[in-house]
């Protein structure tokens, strides 16, 4: 017992003083926090300080752009956070070349109108002549005006064809010019993006958004919503519904998210209910793998430099393994305690809002600690058993990496818990030993699992730990004295099941 305590203390103290522990306790979480916080702070600072100008381009004068802007402004009205987007209809100046083309088209239109008038006049004159009594003179006048009618109609048709051709041509060139102008504004960074409303496509519910930078395609839901409202308005109007009622029906909806947790109901908060537990699991896993990693590399080094033989000449292998596992387990708990204290300190300084860490209450913290200990004992015994089989750091390093990737796998599956924490699949996965600690820690604040799930999962973990310690002991007893070639999988199983 005394020897066991000496080893426990030694393992705790020597790793507590190591640079790796300081890195894992203070630097890794800082880097992790920086990864999360820097983009968030950047987005928040840019979104509050900068107004993004989004243009709206349309080809006709139906005023769709103005309607979209109005609906957008209505949706923003009354919100605590001021809108970060300004929607402006774009009226670009027409070029001289296009003005000349428009003038030519206008002249053609005037000519066409004049020929149309002339044609109507000839038709009316013939009608008047036709109504006169039938005489030789009337017949002669009808024949003469008929020729005039044919000539005028021919001229008018030709003028109309020319007008349509030139007008269509002009219209296409104008569209191109408008888009080019809008694109130029994007390139000159005068606009973050623009909506492009083509009347024909608009009827089918298609509106395009053009932008230069990928980030501008994010957070435009408010504009999308305004466009949808205008399209729905147009469609409802087409069905003959009352305009004032349409406005009323399309009022923005205030959607409240209430989550049932046990007998309590709480407003859903992404940070508290979704991201928070995930971060806790992540940190607990940093701790588990810091301690297990120390254990793995410690055993390997002691084996490489034969210190293990001196140790085994002083204590038996049960005491040695137990001392190491306990010493590093206490180190892990101490690491968690440091983090917990930092959180409490930050809460005290009002840097973190109490409600944001509300899930770290005493009950949950106790359960987290329980699953941390179970997870640590499980993984630590596996690591110590496997670590003792290698006498070469390079061989062991590859396996260590593989084990870490394999062990971090449950975090990858965490999304399943976050989606539906009480689904059958999640419950089944919660009872598979390598996944149990992660899944139960995640389920605790999110899904409030039934007591039976806690009992089953703890029972399964205890049995698994007994087995893994038993097998690790066998591996350690033989493996710690094996030198030379690395053992094959067959040999490892041979040692375990001998």
């Amino acid at each position, binding site marked *: 017992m005394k020897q066991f305590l000496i080893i426990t203390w*030694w393992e705790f103290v*020597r790793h507590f003083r190591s640079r790796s522990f300081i890195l894992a306790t203070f630097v890794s979480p800082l880097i992790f926090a920086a990864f999360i916080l820097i983009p968030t702070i950047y987005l928040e600072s840019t979104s509050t300080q900068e107004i993004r100008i989004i243009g709206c381009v349309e080809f006709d004068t139906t005023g769709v752009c103005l309607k979209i802007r109005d609906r957008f402004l209505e949706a923003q009205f009354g919100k605590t956070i001021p809108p970060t987007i300004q929607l402006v209809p774009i009226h670009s100046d027409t070029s001289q070349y296009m003005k000349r083309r428009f003038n030519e088209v206008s002249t053609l239109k005037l000519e066409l109108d004049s020929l149309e008038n002339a044609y109507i006049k000839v038709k009316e004159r013939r009608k008047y002549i036709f109504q006169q009594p039938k005489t030789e003179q009337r017949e002669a006048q009808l024949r003469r005006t008929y020729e005039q009618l044919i000539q005028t109609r021919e001229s008018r048709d030709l003028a109309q064809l020319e007008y349509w051709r030139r007008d269509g041509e002009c219209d296409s060139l104008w569209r191109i010019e408008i888009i080019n102008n809008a694109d130029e504004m994007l390139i000159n960074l005068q606009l973050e993006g623009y909506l492009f409303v083509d009347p024909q496509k608009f009827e089918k519910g298609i509106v395009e958004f053009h932008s230069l930078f990928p980030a501008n395609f994010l957070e435009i839901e408010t504009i999308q919503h305004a466009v949808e409202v205008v399209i729905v308005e147009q469609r409802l109007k087409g069905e003959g519904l009352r305009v004032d009622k349409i406005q009323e029906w399309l009022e923005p909806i205030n959607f409240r998210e209430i989550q049932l947790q046990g007998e309590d109901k709480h407003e859903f908060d992404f940070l508290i209910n979704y991201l928070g537990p995930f971060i806790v699991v992540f940190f607990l896993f940093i701790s588990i793998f810091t301690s297990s990693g120390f254990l793995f590399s410690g055993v390997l080094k002691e084996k*490489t*430099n*034969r*210190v293990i033989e001196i140790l*085994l*000449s*002083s204590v038996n292998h049960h005491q040695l393994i137990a001392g190491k596992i306990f010493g590093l387990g206490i180190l892990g708990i101490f690491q968690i305690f440091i983090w917990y204290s930092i959180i409490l300190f930050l809460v005290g300084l009002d840097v973190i809002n109490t409600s944001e860490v509300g899930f770290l209450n005493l009950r949950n913290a106790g359960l987290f600690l329980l699953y941390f200990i179970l997870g640590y004992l499980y993984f630590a015994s596996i690591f110590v058993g496997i670590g003792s089989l290698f006498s070469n750091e390079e061989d062991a390093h590859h396996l260590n990496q593989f084990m870490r990737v394999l062990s971090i796998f449950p975090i990858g599956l965490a999304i399943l818990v976050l989606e539906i924490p009480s689904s059958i699949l999640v419950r089944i996965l919660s009872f598979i030993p390598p996944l149990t600690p992660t899944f139960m820690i995640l389920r605790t604040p999110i899904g409030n699992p039934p007591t039976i799930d806690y009992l089953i999962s703890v029972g399964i973990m205890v049995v698994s730990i007994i087995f893994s310690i038993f097998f690790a002991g066998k591996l350690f007893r033989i493996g710690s004295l094996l030198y030379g070639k690395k053992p094959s999988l067959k040999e490892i199983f041979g040692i375990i099941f001998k």
Partner: protein
Amino acid sequence: MNIKIENVTKRFKFGAVVQDLTFSVKPGQIVGLLGPNGAGKTTTLRMILDILKPDEGSITFQDKYINREIRNKIGYLPEERGLYQKYRVLDVLIYFGRLKGLNNRKSHVESVRLLDSFQMIDQLEEPIGHLSKGMQQKLQFLVSLIHDPDILIMDEPFWGLDPINQDLVKQKILSLRNSGKTVLISTHLLPDAEAMCDYFVLIHHGKVVLKGTLEQIRKNFYQNKIIVETDKNLEALRKIPKIKEFEFDDSRIYLYPDRNTSVKEVMRQIINTTDVSRIEIHKPSLNDIFLQTIKNVTK
């Protein structure tokens, strides 16, 4: 404390590593466990230390099986060494002292005393990794002595030491022997063993092939060799009777008389046969005995 190894056998998957091994180590005696690589020396030491369990036979200390108390009286120096490279010399010594049952204060005092006696007091606070290889070897030796053990078991104790430190370690081992400690050394450096050990156990393929004091071994081995140097014709010596083997080497010849032949008579005949510039009776060294024995066993 007396160690008695009786009919010990250890088998691994590939076969027996130690077979029916019997010898004992008495207090005030240095026993050399000798043998080529793979003979089973380290396995034997591990069984004595209770790191491995024998499949057959028994190992007792003063007629008792190993227990916590006995374990604390054993100092062990393994073959290859390293220690904790990042940790301070004093901390590591204290740790091993405490594992051997010393309290913190006693372990601290003993560590300082030992470091001082081995001229390492200036390195007290230094990380082990900063010490030279020789210093680290010396430190490892001190780890085995920290608790003033009654039994000292050392696997290749002179490995990696420079001549000065080798001598320092030798003197310490001899002084421990003289103070009544039980010392077991495993080595394949036979000149060192010959100079230090009081009793030898030569093992090969896990079996004892030779054991006893140097005198006993020499007596039992019986291989007198007569060295003759001459400018004359060496071939003339072949006529001398009762010589089982001749070895020629330029102007020198080695003659191996039959076991029952009088060496004195053979020497007289040599002198009568030819003019010799040198004639010498060569007693076999431990190395000769070792090599010859292994050769005979392998045959």
